[in-house]
Each structure stands twice: as C-alpha cells, then as structure tokens.
C-alpha cells in the first residue's frame, strides 16, 4: 500500500480531485481537473503522467482519467483524513468551517501518521469518556466568550451528533460486531438496539468499553459466538449488527 506523504502535496491534491470528480460526475476529464485545481490544462498533463507512472491513474489521451485500485485506495484515505481533521477542528475545537477546511488541507499532507493516530485516539477518548470533556471545554469557551452564568452548556446537541457514527464508520474507526471475523475483537462504543433487547444486552454485560472477541460462527453462518467478561454468548447477526465497536488493532 502506498504511504501518505510519499507523493508531493500537489500530486496528492490531483489524486483527490480526480477521486472527487469520479464520485460526483462519474468521470474525470482533464479540463474539469484543470478547472477544479485552477491551473491550465497543459500543466495537468505532466502531473497525470507522473501519477500514472506510480500506477495510480489510468490516463488515456482522449481526455478521460480513471483511478487504479491503488489510486482509489490512496485517494480515499487522503480524503478520509481530510474530513476527519476538519471535523476534529470544527466539533472539538469549535473552529469555524472555512478555517477548518483550509487547515485540514494543510494538515492532510504534512501531518505524520503518528500524530494522526493520536488525534483519532484523543477524539475517541473525548467521545467515550464519562467525564464529558467536550462539554466542559465548550462550557469553558462559552464562559470566556460571554462571561455568562455557569449552567451546563447545551453543547451535546451538537449538529454533528447524529451523523457522527456514519462519519466514523467511513474513517474506519468503528465497525459493527457482525462485521468482525472470528478471532477479531473490539471495544464496545455503543449499542443501537431497541429497548427490550438493549436492556438484555446491558444485563449480559455488553456495555461501553467492554472488549468482545468473536469466537466463531455457526456452521450456517448465523448466529455467532462471542466471548466477553470471561464467558461465552451466542447471538444472531441481527443483534450483533446493533453493537458498534472500536476494532482492536
């Protein structure tokens, strides 16, 4: 797999633009690429040649560019990283969107994998820690700004709250229990089942931060057997679908 940062910043940008164009309009034409990047068509060609030499794009002279699977993979990771950084800045640090967008563009190319990983972990921590750091922080800022009274701030009704799971799934941060294979394990982020079955799962000890290992699947593929808190439990994939985990590495 090609590492982030192995290409130049501008080549990485090209890759992302091609990816986005394909996503949006099903195809990437050289003219559109030039428009989007705000350069002339003649300067797009050498960049494409270099990308094609790295085996990231298929570039034919007729003006349509496609991505190789390797290119697609790298572009998706770059974009996921971009999106994460932007979200991190906006939701955690309350940075306005324009600034967050601009900074994310810079971070995405220059940040080391180590820092990125720590940022993801910190984000997870803030999200799951019972001490509610995020709201304290927002509370703190709100008080700084307004010198208002000390009531708990309404921050948990954050506009991103509802779709944050989908986002995090895209970043590869969370998975459902049913998508793990035997031998894999993860830490519970939350349980999305309806009340009756959720209460039962709580009683069986399926709670945030508990480590669950998938032991095996039944011969017909369903139900699955899992291990948690030192005992074995079996449940249908239907139920396992409702259990969201941070996969262990």
């Amino acid at each position: 797999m090609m590492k982030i940062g192995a290409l130049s910043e501008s080549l990485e940008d090209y890759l992302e633009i091609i990816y986005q164009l394909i996503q949006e309009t099903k195809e990437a034409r050289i003219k559109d690429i030039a428009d989007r990047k705000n350069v002339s068509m003649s300067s797009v060609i050498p960049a494409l040649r270099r990308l094609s030499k790295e085996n990231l794009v298929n570039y034919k002279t007729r003006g349509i560019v496609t991505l190789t699977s390797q290119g697609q993979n790298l572009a998706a990771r770059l974009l996921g990283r971009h999106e994460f950084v932007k979200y991190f800045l906006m939701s955690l640090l309350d940075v306005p969107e324009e600034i967050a967008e601009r900074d994310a563009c810079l971070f995405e190319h220059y940040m080391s994998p180590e820092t990125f990983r720590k940022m993801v972990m910190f984000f997870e921590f803030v999200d799951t820690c019972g001490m509610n750091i995020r709201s304290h922080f927002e509370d703190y800022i709100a008080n700084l700004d307004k010198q208002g009274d000390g009531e708990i701030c309404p921050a948990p009704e954050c506009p991103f709250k509802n779709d944050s799971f989908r986002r995090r799934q895209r970043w590869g941060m969370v998975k459902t229990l049913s998508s793990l294979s035997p031998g894999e394990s993860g830490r519970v982020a939350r349980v999305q089942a309806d009340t009756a079955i959720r209460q039962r799962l709580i009683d069986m000890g399926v709670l945030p931060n508990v480590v669950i290992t998938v032991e095996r699947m039944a011969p017909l593929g369903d139900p699955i057997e899992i291990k948690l808190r030192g005992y074995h439990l079996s449940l249908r994939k239907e139920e396992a679908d409702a259990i969201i985990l941070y996969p262990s590495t």
Partner: protein
Amino acid sequence: MQNNSGLETVRVAMAGNPNSGKSSIFNALTGSRQHIGNYPGVTVEKKEGMFREGERSVHVVDLPGIYSLTSYSQEEVIARQHIVESKPAVVVNVIDASNLERNLYLTLQLLEMGLNVVIALNMMDEVEKRGIELDVDMLSRRLGCYVAEVVGHKNIGIDNLKKTILKAFDRGGTETEVIYRAELGREVEKIVKELKQFKDIPYPEQFAAIKLLENDTEVVARLKRQEDSEALFNQISSSIHRLENLYGYPPEVLIGDRRYGYVSGLVKEITIRAPAIDRITLTERIDTLVTHRYLGIPLFLLTMYLIFWMTFTLGHPPMRWIEKGLSLLTQKIDSFWPSGASLMLKSLINDGIIGGVGGVIIFLPNILFLFLGISFLEDTGYMARIAFIMDKIMHKIGLHGRSFIPLLIGFGCTVPAILATRTIRSEKTRFTTIFILPLMSCGARLTIYLMVIPAFFPRSWQAPVLWSIYLIGILLALLLAKLLRKSLFRGEAEPFVMELPPYRMPSMKAIVLHMWDKSWQYIKKAGTIILAVSILIWILLTFPRVETKLQVNPPSGQQAQLSEESIRQKQLMESYAGRIGRIIEPALKPMGFDWKIGTSFIGAFAAKELFVAQMSIVYSIGDSETSPETLREVLRKNYSPLTGFCIMIFALIGTPCVATLAVTKKEMGSWKWVAIQWAGLTGMAWVVTTAIYQLGRLL
C-alpha cells in the same frame, strides 16, 4: 412465623443466573429431585421443598434463572415476581464462582432491593481446578452479606449453607452500601425524595427509583396508577434528560455501567491468585470440532442417528421380552379362566386392559433409551450447541433455535417433546412449536407403518416408502410453522441471545435418577389415562350385545370357528364403535377408507399403536397366537397399496392422541387451543389424504 406444630417457619428463595446450579443446591438442601441440566433455562416453574434445621422448618422455593431483575421473558417474570412481591425472609443467591463478574451483577440488584441475601458461592471445584484463589471474607465484608462456599452437585458445604441461611435470618438483613454516586446518585436521590410521599408502593424506594430511571415497564405502569404521580414523572423525565445530556448515554446504560464497573473492581479486589490461562480450554477445543463449518452439521446428524439407533436397536430385545411376557400372561389367563365365569370380563382383561395398556408398556425400553440419549445431550452442554447450530434454519421458518430440541424429541414421543418446549421464551414461538409437534412421526406410529408397508409394498420399496412418510411429516411441519407464524401466532421473532455453558461430564448418579423418574412417569401414564381410555374403547367395541343363538353342539371345529367369526363381525357392526364408524363412513370414502379403518382410527385416538390391535379385532383375528403375517395377508386381499399409503398419511397427520391433547391443554392452558389443534390437524389430514387418494386413482 409460627406454624401449628410449634416449629418456626423460614421462607427462603433460590435466586441466581441461569445454569449457576440453583436446582442442584435446592436438591441438596431439600432432598428433592428437580430436573438439572447443563444449559440455561432448565427450571421454568417455581418448585417447593423444605428442610429442618434445629427447631425451625425452612421452606425453600427453587426459581427459574435470571440475569437481572428486569422482566424479560415469561419464566423470568415468575422469578422476579416471587422475589419482589412475596418477600422471602432470606434469598439464597447462587453464584457461579467461575464466572463471578456476570453473576455478581445480579447480586448487586438483589442487595439494592434491600433483600436479606446469602451468597452460595457455587462451583468452587472448578475455581480450584483452575488454580484461582478467592478472598471470600473480603467478598462478604464488601457486600455486607454472608457467603458460603459450596459444590452443589456433590453436596459439599450444604450443612454450612443451612447454618448460614439461619444466621442471616437471625440477623434480619444485610449491611450494604449504596454504589450510585456523583450525578447518577444525585438523580436517584431526587427521585427517592419524590417517592417518599407515596405510602403503599410495593418496592423499596431506591430500587423503584433505579427501575424508573431504567424505564422498566412494570414499575412505571405500577406507579402511573398511583394518584398525584405527576410531579414524580416530571422529575423522572428531567432526570433522564439531564443524565443523557451529561453523559451522552441513556440512564439504563449508565446504571449497567456503574454496576458492572463496581463488580469488576470487586472481582479484582477479591482475587488473590488467578493464573493467566493462555492454554486453550477443553470446552473451546470441543467447540471447534462440534460447531465446525463443515463437520458441525454432519456430527450433529450422526449424534442424532446414534440416539435413534440406540432407541430402536438396543430397545428392541427388552421390548420383545415384555411382549412375550404379556402374551404369556394372556394365555395363562385364558387357560386358567374358570369355565363358568364371565367371558366378557375375560375379554375386558385380555383385549381391553392387557391389549391397551400392554401395547403402551412395551415401548418403555425404547422410551428409556431415547431419554438416556436426551439426558446425555442435556447434561454435557451439547443441547445449547444444537440450538446454536440449528437456529438459522429454524429462524427462517419463524421458529427459534430452541424449537429444534423438542422437534427431535418428537420422533420418540410427542408428550415429552411438548414439555420440552418450555425452554422457548416467546409464547408465540412456543405455541407454534407445540402445534406442529404431532407432525413429527412418533414411535407409536411406527408400529402402524410396520404393519402396513410390508403388506402392500415389495421389499425394495419398503425403505423409500417409510422415508417418504417421515419426510412428508417434516415438510408439512415446516409449512405449517411458517403459516401459523403468519396467521394465528403472528408476532415478532424472538431474539437469540443465549449463553453457551462450558461442557461438563455428566454424573452417572444424576442420569440414573433421571431415567428412573422418566420411567415412573411413563408407567403412571399407562396406568391412568391409557388404562381408562382402553377400557372405554373396549366398551365401545363390545356393546350393545347382539342377540346370538349359540349352537350348543357345533358340528365341527372348522365351522364353529366360522360361525364365531361371523358373530363377531355382526357384533362389531352393531357395536357403538361400529355404528359410529358407519356414520362417519361418508366422510371417509373420499380418502378410500371403509368403516372398519374408520373404527380403528377411533381406537388410535387413545394411542396410535392401538390401530394395529384394533384392525386385527375388526378382522376377527383377535386370537393372540395369530402372527401379524396373516393380518397383512387380509389387508392385501381387501385393500389396494394406495389405501395402505393413505392409512399411513392419515395416521401421520390426523387425530393427535389423547396424551398429546392432555399435555397440550396443560401447556397451552386452554381447551380452545386443543380443539383448534385437533381439528386443524385432522382437517389437514383429510385434505392431504383425499388429495393423494383421488390423484392416485387417476394415475
């Protein structure tokens, strides 16, 4: 409490997680013989027993297992109701010491209830085997209640447990601290304050407050009925809202988290030594094989085949002995019958009682071997794996993994199979399973097939025909299940969340006792219901008597036989059963049956195997020495193979036997269901048999 013999009575209840060994300890305490098995959900009803300790008589109630005090399934409601509402003086909380964390979760809730809890720390043998050392004193001090170590199935530590129960009774309560602190604790306190204004709520305030935060249906409904509960419910919803905003989780998750957090801290604290286990346990190794992707299902089929093989092959010789014994008995009665005595009485004893009851008793060995196999499945822990393996298929037709076990048992006998459905939690799934159970061809119906098949089909056809009968039954069962779940028993599928217990070696003693109980039950059934119905059928076939002119001097033996035969025929035609047979004949015609077959099916209603006996009476071959060969010849002469096949199909689907109906009534609670089941299956039998007969005639 004082009873009239002057003994002080102490009321005790057993509570604990499923499969933690409650019934084992209950049996050890009270000398009872409650059913025990190595899978969760063996006990499904309250069971009572008692023991005496000094001047006190202690009444113990064994309860179904529960994971928490939340009402979830039916038998868990029974347990919770007993614990919450009838307020036992002492609650013996049985804990599987090899699985402390999850077991102690319930303990915390029992303590929250303010119950006088004694912990029976069970399975200490397994803990020792694993080299784990526990600080039991510390556990007792931290939870503020007495703890007794026991090994339930081996009777170790039972005396000490008895003494501890009474010590707790004398102390009258526990010394337990509250574990809810910080924001959660504050909200609980607020609700408790609101609750104080109500005087007659049946729960302790702290418990009620927590259950209200968890939005427990039963407690919420109970308090909604209270007058002026508006302020309370306003407080509750504001508390729930506040906690959710603060922590980002609903209160029930917070509460669960708090309890489990406390428990896992406690477990760390009391564990003195716990060798890290990196070796693969035996259970895991067995499971790798038993639930293997490709081997799992074949292994399961092989196991079932072995059990059936054992049932039929090993059960055969003793069955023959009983058969021989019975026919010897009939002959003896025949030869010693005083010449002047009533022939009617002799017929009642020989044909009615020995024929009817004996016909059932001869299957005792088969039944015993079947139950030996099933108790092996239960005690080792394989039963839970079968549910695990088969759940997918069962789920597809609207049933549950647990439905599969009764269906298997149904090949032996429908009666124990219906009892086995108690492990199915959802009522609709359970009722569906009971409804389709008679379609699993039982051992008694096998006797009918064994009579009919050789009469009509050449040797090379016999096995496929038998196979097709069983298959038709299974296919119809699957179809019917699907249909019922879409109509009569429509409802959501029950989720499958089941604990898989570790494998255990079954103890010889337990199995022998189990066998003994089963045979006794079976003999009791033969001696009561089967006896009564046999006599009834004999009466129906014998009365009213027709006027017969007995020839005083029969000219020759040959002719006497003949005339006796014709008298019998006439008698039969005119008997109540014969009349009924002729009345229903028009309904039987489309299926290709005459009134004789019809009458025999009335007999088969008592017990399916009576069909064979009855057919032979109808054809006047009642003589006990006649071999079945001749009956077969008579059948071949009188009927076509198509009719033979139709007899088997009708026997398979229609008219479930009396014992089945009685158990269905007991388990489903109303004669309405019994009527629907009986009529439904018999109607279906009529339709299917008619279709086969009419189609068969065209070909």
